[in-house]
């Protein structure tokens, strides 16, 4: 069965946008909980979320004040922020619409309804009292979709592109969360925060729904180093960077011509293996995570060139490809 590049690309981006919406919802929920737990003088505030989502410039361009309501609005419902939950869901829906004949009908309906619901009830998301339910609905909505996809979509090339997008986005999001949290708490307030370290890193785990799993697998206290190790290296937790990379490798092995992007995953794995959080100084960890993100972006580019842009940039152009097709 032929799989058109365009169709593969839409499935891939549909998954990425859905994952992005879910992760942003998790992030906001965890941060809100954290703020409630900390004494006033050392509350982390909301700026760090802007940094995590990589939208500092865009935010300062559109929002003069940085406070809870401006950040929340920007992250949940701002149409000018392409990474906002609402925009992500809308992009996911537009991608899904184009491949409606490929994905199961329930999947399309679920995405469509999820967007419409999120849009209709936006006011709930902006209200501190109703925000939790609103975000939970989005997280569960995306999870439900993952279930529909896994349980009703043929596990063929199309499904692999869906999984690939999902895991790449997830790996990227996890490294972002580690990076920003790490910076936050190593700053000058560190001393004042020390008594709360446990709570802080619990919030990091919770933003990734990793707290319970962490507890089960590491019967250690919740410390910065252990959490970083767990989120980077755990082979069993599905939101750890390592797990996502393993999944991506699995997807790629099931796809044709995957040698190039697969080659990029090996060094990524070694990079993670070689990282020892306890010996890394603050700047080094930041640098390390930068490196990880760049490598992940390289994987994306390799996937794009290999599958979505057949012939446009390929050497030899269409003529050489014709012999390949024959």
């Amino acid at each position: 069965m032929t799989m058109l590049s365009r169709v593969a690309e839409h499935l891939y981006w549909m998954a990425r946008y859905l994952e992005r919406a879910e992760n942003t919802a998790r992030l906001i929920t965890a941060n809100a909980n954290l703020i409630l737990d900390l004494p006033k003088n050392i509350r982390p505030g909301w700026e760090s979320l802007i940094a995590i989502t990589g939208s500092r410039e865009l935010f300062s361009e559109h929002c003069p004040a940085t406070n809870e309501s401006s950040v929340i609005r920007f992250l949940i419902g701002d149409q000018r922020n392409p990474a906002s939950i609402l925009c992500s869901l809308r992009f996911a829906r537009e991608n899904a619409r184009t491949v409606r004949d490929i994905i199961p009908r329930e999947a399309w309906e679920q995405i469509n309804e999820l967007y419409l619901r999120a849009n209709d009830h936006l006011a709930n998301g902006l209200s501190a009292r109703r925000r939790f339910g609103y975000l939970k609905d989005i997280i569960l909505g995306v999870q439900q979709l993952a279930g529909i996809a896994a349980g009703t979509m043929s596990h063929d090339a199309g499904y692999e592109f869906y999984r690939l997008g999902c895991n790449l986005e997830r790996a990227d999001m996890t490294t972002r969360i580690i990076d920003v949290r790490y910076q936050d708490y190593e700053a000058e307030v560190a001393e004042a925060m020390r008594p709360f370290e446990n709570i802080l890193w619990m919030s990091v785990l919770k933003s990734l729904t990793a707290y319970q799993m962490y507890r089960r697998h590491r019967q250690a206290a919740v410390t910065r180093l252990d959490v970083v190790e767990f989120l980077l290296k755990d082979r069993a937790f599905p939101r750890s960077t390592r797990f996502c990379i393993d999944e991506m490798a699995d997807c790629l092995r099931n796809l044709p011509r995957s040698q190039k992007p697969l080659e990029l995953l090996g060094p990524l794995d070694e990079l993670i293996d070689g990282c020892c959080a306890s010996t890394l100084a603050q700047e080094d960890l930041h640098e390390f995570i930068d490196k990880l993100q760049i490598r992940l972006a390289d994987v994306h580019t390799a996937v794009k060139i290999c599958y979505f842009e057949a012939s446009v940039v390929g050497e030899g152009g269409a003529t050489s490809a014709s012999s390949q097709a024959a």
Partner: protein
Amino acid sequence: MTISWHSYQADAYFDELIADNGLPRPGAETVISHFGELSDAEIEARKAAAEAEILSMGITFSVYSESEGSIDRAWPFDIIPRTIGLREWMTIEQGLIQRVKALNRFIDDIYHDQNIVRDGVFPKTLLADSKNFRPECVGVDPPLGVWAHVCGSDLVRDRDGTVYVLEDNLRVPSGVSYMLENRLVMKRVFPELFENISIQPVDDYPSQLYACLASLAPPDVDYPEVVVLTPGIYNSAYFEHCYLAQQMGAELVEGSDLIVGDDDCVYMRTIEGLGRVHVIYRRIDDLFLDPEAFNPDSVLGVPGLLRAWKRGKVALANAPGAGVADDKVVYTYVPEIIEYYLGEQPILRNVPSYRCSDPEQRDYVLGHLDELVVKPANESGGYGILIGPKSTRKERDWFAEQIRKDPRNYMAQPLLILSTAPTLVDLHVEPRHLDLRPFILSGLQTYVTNGGLTRVALRKGSTVVNSSQGGGSKDTWIVNDDES
């Protein structure tokens, strides 16, 4: 309560199912008696079942709105089928084959020697002003010499029962998927009717279409790659593009999926690399096909596609330029065209038409605008038409001015009193006007659908059958009337 056929009044019109004497026409007997025996509750249940089928099959047409994007609407469907006796249909079928054969000969001649012009049968000036004549196509030899591979001809019946061809759609006619889905719905909802009468099947259309398209592939290709080229999800016929692609097992592609190589061959971008494409069933208008050759702003098309087609590396169905015969003024010449190329008398009749390019006929048209239907040469979907008896003074004045300014672009016809068929309206039956669009495939072989898509104007008195304007459809049954 059941349907009472005695109170059914279609006196002023020709009714497809009930003759003037109140008795069923040949082929309609079983339908009439069966529906007459169903209780109201049963009719309601069947109607609901049909609607549920339509929803669950996802039979929709798209209406685009600014606020909500593209909306899919369920296709309005009437459960009382429209019947045509097999004997009458066989004549119509022959007429359609004859017509399309002549039209294909005409198009081929127009892009080559233009003998018909030279012999004075068809005026040269008409060609010069034709919006759908493509100079780029002159001298091209498409496979099998066929230009219009898929034709949808609209048939109507007048008050006296005569069947006329209203127009031939030779560019990208749509509607065939509804014909197929309508039959599927009827088979599920009224299986008992199919047991009792011989109704000609329609289901083989997708395989006939595939065979027709595959027969156009370059001769050295054993397994031709056939694709359906769609403008995309916002096109109102997108459902049909998807449906036909799925039914044929062909890939549904958009312009950006295709690329023309340095070797002038067409390839599609797949995750395995580039794959050669041999035949494109294109559902994009000529001018958007290839930004290199036509509209440079088109983002729907494929740069270089026309070049590939001209060199015979890919077949396009329908061929670019086929629309030259899909012109309402050219239409008025079809009887002459049939006689000229085939030496035969036309089997199907044209609606008598006045050509505004002829001074005498133009004067008549201008003097009778309140009685006539005036059509521009190159519009489709019922746009830009003047319906004289229903028009205002202002509209007639505007049309008169247009006709004087550009007479070649207009033709006029008397207003036909379209035939009717009984249609369910709140559990009783009323006559509603309808037409019929059969589809004719021309490849190595010629194929005519058994019946076609019956479109019905659901609003009382209306003759507008377009789905965007309150039209619906019925299943069309070609019934073997020798058996009943």
